[in-house]
């Protein structure tokens, strides 16, 4: 029983990481109808930005909540800027082109970031500075909690709540929803669609960057190819929840984390990476809209 509950805790904690990345995916897809393959690599960049920022301000030497928040904010800002650059130079010119072109471009950007990352950062793994620490060990009997992981969980939830607020309670959010509903109609209503798309892209990138820092905190090993698998899995999570849907992304990510955890724990650990894709294919075959997605019919 202890083992089962421990697995449950582990699954939720890895799921919350997937959720942060999945949110960016789902938002960009919502407004752009584009699967941004480079999203996982922006998460990688976030981890590296956080690494350099922490080293620049020597945040590793005085771990505190302030250090963490400082690194987090700066990383989110730089990631948003990177996202802005990518969007402006690579995606904006393709707004009117077939979606496949944009998809190929995003694959190109993803590979560019990965391989250039290897050249610039070096391909050896780096140790992410411990910019925040909670001493002691939290445990109930044999059940172990990593205090850092709980911190990360709380921060993730906070970020998601802020996101929810932005989308549903602000004018900007309303514009975003309008654009995701229908580009042309939105622009007829006077919404600056291009600016809204850029903003959404920046928001998604900032979230991915936050994910990078938080992962670096709990799993302090970062490398240029770290974004590949989490990126793909977060995408699966987004599809599972119904792509384009914010709540769905979170639920999908947590479910995926749990599913992986239990497959590894009880069934066949060596099939872990195949599981996510099997889920993906099954979801797409039997419920392509995902858990929370809305059905759209294609019109002539």
């Amino acid at each position, binding site marked *: 029983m202890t083992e089962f509950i421990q697995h449950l805790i582990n699954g939720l904690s890895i799921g919350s990481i997937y959720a942060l990345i999945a949110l960016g995916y789902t938002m960009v897809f919502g407004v752009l109808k584009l699967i941004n393959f480079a999203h996982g690599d922006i998460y990688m960049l976030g981890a590296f930005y956080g690494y350099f920022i922490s080293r620049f301000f020597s945040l590793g030497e005085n771990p505190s909540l302030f250090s963490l928040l400082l690194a987090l904010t700066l990383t989110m800002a730089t990631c948003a800027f990177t996202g802005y650059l990518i969007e402006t130079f690579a995606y904006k010119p393709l707004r009117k082109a077939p979606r496949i072109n944009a*998809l190929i471009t995003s694959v190109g950007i993803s590979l560019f970031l990965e391989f250039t990352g290897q050249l610039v950062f070096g391909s050896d793994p780096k140790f992410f500075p411990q910019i925040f620490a909670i001493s002691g060990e939290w445990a109930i009997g044999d059940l172990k909690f990593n205090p850092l992981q709980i911190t990360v969980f709380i921060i993730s939830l906070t970020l998601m709540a802020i996101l929810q607020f932005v989308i549903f309670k602000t004018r900007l959010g309303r514009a975003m929803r309008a654009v995701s509903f229908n580009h042309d109609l939105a622009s007829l209503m006077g919404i600056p669609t291009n600016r809204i798309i850029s903003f959404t892209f920046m928001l998604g990138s900032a979230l991915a960057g936050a994910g990078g820092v938080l992962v670096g905190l709990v799993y302090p090993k970062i490398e240029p190819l770290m974004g590949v698998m989490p990126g793909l899995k977060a995408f699966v999570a987004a599809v599972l929840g119904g792509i384009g849907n914010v709540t769905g992304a979170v639920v999908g990510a947590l479910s995926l984390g749990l599913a992986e955890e239990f497959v590894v724990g009880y069934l066949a650990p060596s099939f872990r990476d195949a599981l996510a*894709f099997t889920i993906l294919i099954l979801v797409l075959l039997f419920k*392509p809209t995902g858990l929370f997605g809305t059905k759209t019919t294609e019109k002539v």
Partner: protein
Amino acid sequence: MKQYLIWLTALVAIVIVNFGLIPFLPPYYYSILIYSGVNIILAVSLNLVNGFTGQFSIGHAGFMSVGAYLSAYISIMITKDNPDLLANPVTANLIFLVSLIAGGAGSAIIGYFVGLPSLRLRGDYLAIVTLGFGEIIRVMILNIDAIGGARGFTGIPLLSNFLWVYIAVLFTLFFIWRLVNSAHGRTYLSVREDEIAAQSMGVNTTNAKVQAFVIGAFFAGIAGGLFAHFLLYLNPQTFDFNRSFEIIIMVVLGGAGSISGSVVAAIILTVIREALRPIQEITRIDFRMSIYSLFLIILMLNRPNGLFGTKEIFNFMSSKMRRLFLGKEDTAT
């Protein structure tokens, strides 16, 4: 009639080159030639799915790996107990033929299952599913001990050679060229252009899509078999996402929907990889992949239709040449 003459001439040319030129070719260039051939088959077969049928598949390396492993497994199983079969050129080539076709067929069966989701999915969703299938196949191979798992698969007999590879290339080109120019093949194009319109015209779009996947997978499997019996060693790492991506670049660079474009692009990219090596000796860093990906982005932004678009190389020739090649004025697509 004239068309067949062209294919026949090409066949004769391949045979002449094989006996007249290949023995004098340095091994390094010979390897480049073989890999070019394998890449041509891969690019053209992917083009059938991506370019002509308009289904975006990014798991082509998965099909290639199925063909490679299956054909290697079969030729090893047959020759394991009777090594003299390999000494006799007749039986050796026969075994190779059997294992190649089996590899292609195995891959085609997988292609059928990957094609099925395309009935319900389009565009980017399908792309992700094919990617997922590629990954699943890779994880499966890692878990099968009989074919080496992570250790890799060794002991494959050397059976591929220039003649085999280029006859396969010619066959692939012939088959797909004839296919997309047939009435049957036109249904594939109609799916690409407008699925709903095609449906309302009575085209069985379901069939067309699945068939494209099956045929594409079959040829990818053949390419895998040729590759396996040349490299003599298989490892799941060889067939990762990057490999699929390389094939996509070939299709995009050549122009989705242009067979000759894929051929040219496959050759250019195979040769360019090697041509860039001297640079690497100077800089000590390999930034070929960075160049590659940047190149792809720039290509998509400035020339999204690739070198040839949907045109064929003949369309750039004078009408006289075209007539010589095709025996008619009007060309496909």
